[in-house]
């Protein structure tokens, strides 16, 4: 929640991790996509945000330690290290090959092992159930060496399959005995191990009770929600005289729909010919951000809670000052009051004059994304806003109205720009109709900005419903602000399902087209069959799917 997360930049880096990992696995022809993907948010949040570490000085004495006990998640781990800057990501394509530094299971880096490892790897894993004990050793040593206030943390990632090992529980007892409050274990609870589902092979539940009974402070999170992971890690820092266990409920293979929660994909590589389509799927992750000013302008807390239950990705907050736009909604004080309602990221869209003068209030209100209007600031003002937001760990964004082109100066600010909102209505009032003429603008802008180094997200805002979502998706948008489409009809549950469904249909259609271009359509449909069945009608592939074996 809030500080130091820079939500969209973090999401984007984790997306890149998955994309590199799948390329490595496909090139190698073997490896573990399932565990790499279930742990992507955990490792990404640690390496890109939480941990003290320095890729240019991996042996830095004040670093936090990361021990990857479930070492078969190696492709994900290597990709995380590469995206963090430890080595060039391209090298991931040598994974598991003879002569590569990237061994099937990571090897502790040393002068002696430099041909079989990369800097930043502390521990040689592969045999299960050992890493937690190693983490205990490091934590004990660090307690001897450093004063309490600057003690390094030791983070250990463990798996639920490896929790079958007795040594995990030996370690669990020992960490409790030694009161290791500089040790944080994170359990990647994806519920699948090599032979099948964990609760069939060797049940682990009640997991939380077990760890608590072993004298650990236990937190439980959705392991694919970075905001929840950050929140738990922040809480972990406040725990004294006890080790911390964060149970991260995850989905094995999360990110590729036909691999997700499927035991078959524990340790199997996708065919290399599928790589491009898989990359497209990973790139296509989309985020839904309901705008709470839609419908009745009251009971915002209730509206937030209702969409949180439906699994939306963030909350869109339309701030209108009655001057930049004719309408007035709410300001930073309201956001501050709403903040404790949810851990979902706050996507604040400031439709206000002179945003620089008020930016601090929105930073203090703990927004996660703050977007200001290009029409409301000068280049210098925007640069200052951007700098302050980045320093505060907030994703900076810029919005343009339907009639506005991006200012030329924006091209000099792309490096730290996390989102651009392309308005598809004239802002100021809720419930307007989508302006289709912004679609070609979105396509052109997306292309042009990417060419100049923009790595962030395009957000579609204004008149988004099931139909226009698909259109803006095709035009390159990956964040969708939905107001009336969520809150308008009274059936919030049904509306969110409908939006997700339409987004899924759009995705499947694009992937099928891509597969067709690559001449692998039947093969792709075979791999994807159980995913495609519910959409067969809308995609018009019922018959084709029927004959696919």
């Amino acid at each position: 929640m809030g500080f130091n997360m820079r939500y969209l930049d973090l999401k984007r880096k984790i997306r890149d991790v998955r994309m590199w990992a799948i390329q490595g696995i496909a090139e190698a022809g073997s490896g573990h996509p399932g565990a790499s993907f279930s742990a992507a948010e955990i490792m990404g949040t640690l390496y890109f945000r939480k941990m003290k570490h320095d890729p240019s000085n991996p042996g830095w004495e004040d670093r936090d330690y990361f021990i990857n006990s479930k070492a078969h998640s190696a492709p994900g781990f290597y990709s995380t290290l590469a995206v963090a800057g430890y080595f060039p990501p391209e090298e991931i394509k040598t994974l598991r090959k003879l002569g590569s530094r990237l061994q099937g299971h990571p090897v502790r880096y040393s002068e002696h092992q430099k041909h079989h490892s990369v800097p930043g790897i502390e521990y040689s894993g592969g045999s299960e159930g050992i890493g937690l004990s190693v983490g205990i050793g490091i934590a004990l040593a660090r307690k001897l060496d450093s004063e309490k206030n600057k003690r390094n943390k030791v983070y250990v990632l463990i798996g639920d399959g490896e929790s079958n090992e007795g040594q995990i529980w030996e370690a669990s007892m020992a960490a409790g005995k030694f009161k290791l409050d500089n040790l944080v274990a994170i359990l990647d609870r994806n519920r699948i191990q090599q032979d099948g589902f964990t609760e069939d092979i060797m049940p682990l539940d009640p997991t939380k009770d077990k760890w608590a009974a072993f004298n650990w402070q236990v937190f439980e999170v959705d392991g694919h929600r970075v905001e929840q992971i950050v929140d738990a890690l922040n809480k972990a820092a406040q725990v004294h005289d006890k080790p911390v266990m964060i149970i991260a409920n995850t989905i094995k293979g999360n990110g590729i729909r036909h691999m997700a929660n499927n035991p078959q994909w524990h340790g199997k590589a996708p065919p290399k010919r599928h790589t491009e389509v898989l990359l497209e799927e990973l790139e296509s992750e989309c985020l839904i951000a309901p705008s709470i000013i839609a419908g009745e302008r009251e009971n915002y807390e209730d509206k937030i809670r209702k969409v949180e239950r439906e699994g939306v990705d963030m909350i869109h907050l339309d701030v209108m000052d009655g001057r930049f736009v004719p309408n007035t909604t709410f300001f930073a004080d309201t956001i501050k009051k709403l903040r404790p309602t949810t851990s979902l990221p706050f996507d604040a869209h400031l439709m206000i004059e002179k945003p620089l003068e008020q930016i601090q209030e929105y930073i203090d209100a703990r927004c996660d994304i703050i977007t200001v209007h290009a029409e409301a600031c000068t280049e210098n003002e925007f640069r200052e806003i951007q700098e302050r937001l980045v320093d505060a760990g907030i994703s900076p964004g810029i919005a343009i109205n339907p009639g506005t082109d991006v200012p030329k100066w924006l091209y000099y600010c792309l490096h730290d720009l996390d989102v651009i909102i392309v308005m598809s209505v004239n802002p100021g009032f809720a419930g307007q109709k989508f302006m289709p003429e912004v679609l070609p603008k979105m396509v052109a802008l997306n292309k042009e900005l990417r060419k100049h180094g923009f790595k962030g997200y395009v957000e579609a805002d204004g008149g988004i419903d099931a139909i226009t979502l698909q259109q803006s998706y095709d035009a390159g948008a990956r964040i969708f602000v939905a107001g009336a489409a969520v809150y308008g009809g009274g059936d919030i549950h049904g509306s969110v399902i409908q939006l997700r469904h339409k987004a899924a249909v759009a995705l499947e259609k694009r992937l099928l087209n891509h597969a067709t271009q690559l001449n692998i359509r039947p093969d792709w449909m075979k791999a994807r069959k159980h995913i495609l069945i519910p959409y067969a009608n809308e995609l018009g592939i019922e018959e084709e799917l029927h004959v696919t074996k």
Partner: protein
Amino acid sequence: MLLSSEKKTADMRGTYGDTLVELGRDDPRIVCVGGDTTDSLKTKKFGDKYPERMFNVGIAEANLVSVAAGLSIAGKIAFASTYAAFIPGRCIDQIRNTICYPSLNVKLVVSHGGLTVGPDGATHQQLEDFASMRAIPNMRVIIPADAVAVKHLIKTIARTPGPFYMRLARPSSEVIYADHAESFEVGRGNVLEDGSDATIIACGLMVGRAREAAEELRRNGVSCRVVDMFSIKPIDKQLVVKCAKETGAIVTAEEHNIIGGLGGAVSEVVVEHHPVPVRRVGVHDTFGESARDEEIDTLLEKYGLTATEIAKAVLEARSRSRK
């Protein structure tokens, strides 16, 4: 003077504990992990002196050695100790993957090796550890012959980076070396007595028996060289070859299965570099059994670990020698 001039016994474990305390005094990086056997291993002495650097993890050997690995990753010199039956017996995987593969600075110093464990019986009589530890890359295997060797070798392994396995005996044992002897280099053996007709290469408690055998043979006109090969890995290849060339026959003696231990290590060198007849004295691929402390000599006799058995083997090897 290499050898002790007086006949006395001393306790290897007690010496280990004292030496650890001494090392701990001079080097704050020395830490120790124990497994509910700290009294028996005498590492308790270290724990009493430096409680913050002693970690007792209870009866959990896999955790024990892995915690030691973690301590070494964070810059410590970690001694991990319990009975030889359990380290390496219960944690070869952790020793191999977690400690040896990355060559961590962990010293596995264990006691109660071999048949001389006595009353506890075969489950506690570790007889396969030289073989298993020797086969893992980066691991070095050190088997001291007496308490003096323990004192020097503990210091040596503490200052030599990387993993070591050292096995101590349970009973007090005959002191072989003079107190100030300092000839304990990893990878070197010590020639305790010279001779020209055969060489007995022994380690641990069998070094004393080897000397007795040499004495007996000398009385019968056979001149026997006696080598204490405390460094089973790396083995003193040069010395083994030299003995093969100069004496023409070799007998090994160890408190270990004859498969894969000192006998194996010596044979490998001899066969490759200068083949001569070799006889291996040790436990013949079987498990031991209980014996009360006062019956231990009889137990060793029953399993063929005596001076007489060594002398017999020397004569046999010599009879086939071409020298």
